[in-house]
Each structure stands twice: as C-alpha cells, then as structure tokens.
C-alpha cells in the first residue's frame, strides 16, 4: 500500500508538489508568527506538522482522484528484431527503451507546464530546439498541450555498424489536448507515426530527431 502510494506520489507534477510545499510553508509561517510558551510551542509545532502533512496528503489524494494514474502513464513496447546491420543487445535495448520513455514523459511535462528545463536531458540538437521553440511560443500565447494515455509501439529499423545511431519507428497513440489558458480548444485521440533518431550520450541515449510522418 505504501509502495503504491509512493509510486503514485512520484507521478505528481512538479507544479502540484510546489503548491503542496507552499501550503506547508504557509502553515509553518503562521505557526512562527505566534509567540507561545515553550510547552504550547511544542504542542503547536506537533499539531502544525500534522496539519501540513494532512494538507499534503489531502492534496495528493485529490490529485490522484482527479487525474487517474493511467492518464499520466507512458507505455512503450519495443521490437528490435529487425534492426540492422548491427544487432541490438539486450542491455542496449533496455537502455533505449528506458530513455525513450523518459523522453516522452519529459516532453509531456514540458509542454503541459511550459517547463523548458525538462527537455535538456533527453533531447539534443534539432529535437530539443523544436520542442524549446514550442514551449516558448506556448508561453507567449498562454497555451499548453497535454499528451495523455500514451502508448508507443516502437520498432528499431536501423542500428549503425558502430552503434552510434539508431533509427526507430514509433506508432504512438495518445489523447492530445490543447488548452488556451484553462479552456480546452482541442481534444482528440490521435495515432501518430514518428521517425526517431537516437544517439548514445555519456551514460544514456538521447533523442536527436523526432519527426512525425503520415505513414511508415
């Protein structure tokens, strides 16, 4: 149960965590403004801590009820059987799958909360520039984009002889929501086809190209 709760809490967006922290800090500062005796201070401290924890728990619970866990999930299935000329080793496959999934989590976070920082790790070069440009223009016009219920069927179609570049075909389906301020202007379940180029960095794989195509 605790593990499940922890798993859920790790999926809370940064903004909500920030809001929860703000509530906790407000409770804490309200406590500091009072000048009680030592005994009452201890009692007050304990009660404030309980209140702040309850507030955080309540906020997390509200989030969990409002946003089902599956909505934020990113499912990635990868097939590397047809990759060549170099065969993809099991460890490499796991690394690519992990980092590609992280890339989509970061992309969804960046475009929902207009947080460009989330893009710096998993994306480089053209892919990063394009997404950064999206974030900055979204900020300018007060827009945001949500990628919900993501499912990616990824197939590695090329793996270079020296292992320095891999090309993936990703048939992705997700719920695309575009919001202007708080108002939803577009909500559609889309099936997209992406051609992806990933290259190895120091200790992980990075997305260098993420380009949607009509079909493979």
């Amino acid at each position, binding site marked *: 149960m605790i593990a499940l709760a922890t798993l859920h809490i790790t999926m809370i967006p940064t903004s909500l965590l920030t809001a929860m922290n703000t509530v906790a800090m407000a409770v804490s500062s309200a406590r500091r403004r009072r000048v009680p005796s030592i005994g009452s201070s201890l009692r007050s401290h304990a009660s404030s801590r309980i209140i702040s924890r309850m507030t955080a728990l309540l906020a997390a619970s509200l989030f969990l009820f409002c946003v089902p866990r599956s909505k934020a999930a990113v499912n990635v299935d990868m097939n590397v059987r047809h990759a060549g000329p170099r065969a993809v080793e099991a460890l490499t496959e796991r690394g690519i799958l992990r980092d590609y999934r992280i890339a989509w989590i970061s992309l969804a976070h960046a475009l929902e909360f207009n947080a460009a920082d989330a893009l710096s790790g998993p994306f480089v070069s053209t892919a990063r520039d394009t997404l950064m440009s999206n974030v900055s223009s979204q900020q300018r016009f007060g827009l945001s984009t949500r990628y919900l219920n993501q499912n990616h069927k990824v197939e590695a179609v090329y793996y270079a002889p020296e292992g320095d570049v891999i090309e993936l075909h990703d048939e992705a389906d997700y719920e695309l929501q575009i919001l202007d301020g708080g108002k939803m202007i577009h909500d559609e379940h889309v099936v997209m086809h992406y*051609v992806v180029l990933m290259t190895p960095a120091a200790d992980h794989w990075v997305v260098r190209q993420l380009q949607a195509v009509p079909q493979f």
Partner: protein
Amino acid sequence: MSWSINTAWANRRMRLLFHACLGIAAVVGVARGVCAAQDLRAPSAATAGEPATISTTGGGRATLYLVGPGVSNKSDVSLGNEIPLRAQDLRDAGQYFAILCSDICHSASFYVSPAMPADLAFLVHPSRVPVAQSDAVSGVALAFDQFGNLVLDSGTVNFQLTAGKASLLSQSVRAHDGIAWFRTTSGKTAGPLQVVASIGQLSARRNVQEVASEPCNLRITGQRTKDGLVVETEPVHDCGGNPVPDGTIVSFTATDASGKSTVDAPIKRGVARAEIAASGPVVVSVASGVAMGNELRIGGGQ
C-alpha cells in the same frame, strides 16, 4: 365525444406539432449555419519553409491556433478568407493542427514534408584502421534539409573511397528511411583514405588514416660484444610491405645456460634494437604482437 370536437383537438395538436417541427428545423438550420461559418480546409500538401494557406468559409471573426512542431501560434482571423501560413511557421516537418474557434472550435490537420537535402551528416568509423582488415571501415549518411528535417526519401547516396590515386570503393546506395550506409575492407597500403558521400551536388568528405597491420616476417641479426650481444631487426613491415610505425614494441628473448631473459624495444626509424647481457652459447628469438621471427644462434666464441 363527437367527430367535430376530435377534429378541433387534432387540428390544435397538429398546429403545435407543426410549429415545434419548424422550431427544430430552425435550430438545426442555425446550427448548420454556425458550423458552416467555421469550416476550414487545411493545405493538402505543404513543404518545410514554404508558405501555405488555410481556406475558411462563413463570415465574422475567429481565432486560429496553429500547433505543430516548433510552433504554437494564436491569431485573430476573418472567416471566409484564405488565411496565409507564414513560411517561418512551417519550418519543421511533421503534423500540424489548425484549430479555428469562434463559438465552437473546428480543427484540421496536415503534414509538412521536408524540403530538399541541404546538409549531409556523414559518420565514418574508425579514424585509424590497420590495412587489409575485413569490414573495418563503415559509414552512415543522413540527409537533412536546411531546417534540420530528416529527408526520408533522399534518393541514392554515392560512396567513394580512394587511397592515394587508387579507388577502393565506389558504391551507390538507395537510402531507406533517410539513411544510407556502407561497410568495406580497408585498403592494402598505409596512408590517408578519403571517404566521400554525395547526393547530387551535395557531398561530405572524411579522412581515415590507414596504418600498417601486424608485423610480418620478422628477421633479426646480432653480434657479440664485450658485454654480451647486440641484436636488431631488419626494417619491420607488415605482410603488405607497409612499414610498421615507430613505437611498436618488439620483444627479444635470449636463452643461455643461465636461463631466459627478455628485452622489449620500440621500433625506431623502422628497426628495433636491443643489447642483451649473455655469455656462452645463446639462442635469441623475436616477436611482436602475434608475429614470431627467426631464431638466432650465437656461439660462445663468436
């Protein structure tokens, strides 16, 4: 209940029903009018970095959102006109969504395809390679347009490998999903190997340094000195006759009555030389890497 009463009641009901139908038809008509007013048609084909237009029907003002790779724009537009999409908003290849909102929102999507190849990314491995190694040199070429979009149907890529004036490889490879590649055996002579990939007028050039392979046919000579022996190799070459680079280690092993001793010496100016302390009859052997040389027997009196 008489027929006349029934008729009057029926007439009233029929009139009410008729008016209700009229009302429904009017509502449907207005709704259809609103929908028609916001209808939009996306471009059927668009190319990166080229302007395009979205056609709309109806009248009045609306808000157009253009959301695609690298762009999330919002602008006020007049319905019934062709709405121009700027070239700078369509620089990135991919899927775009045009959303037109007044009372309600309508959307259309379209794809922007990459422009002509303008840049060739060419990855060649390795930077140094021993001669005559099978499948030792490989290269991958990816074509991009001027906006950094991967050109998926870039056509045929020509790979040319030349060592000096000799052509090592000339191969045309059809790109699949934007990628063309080759793999080949390294040349027979040490020196720079030029590797060129080209698509039309576009080309990228890389250099690979081919170096001598393992030493081959090691031969040593030696002579006794006052303190022992001096042994040295003949100029060290690989099996293709390429001089093995200076610094390559050659091991001399001397076996005499007191046992075995080994001296490692680097090749300097093409030969390796060592002084070995030994007395009496001695057998000297030589090796470098996996290659063994001749044995040299020097008697005690020589």
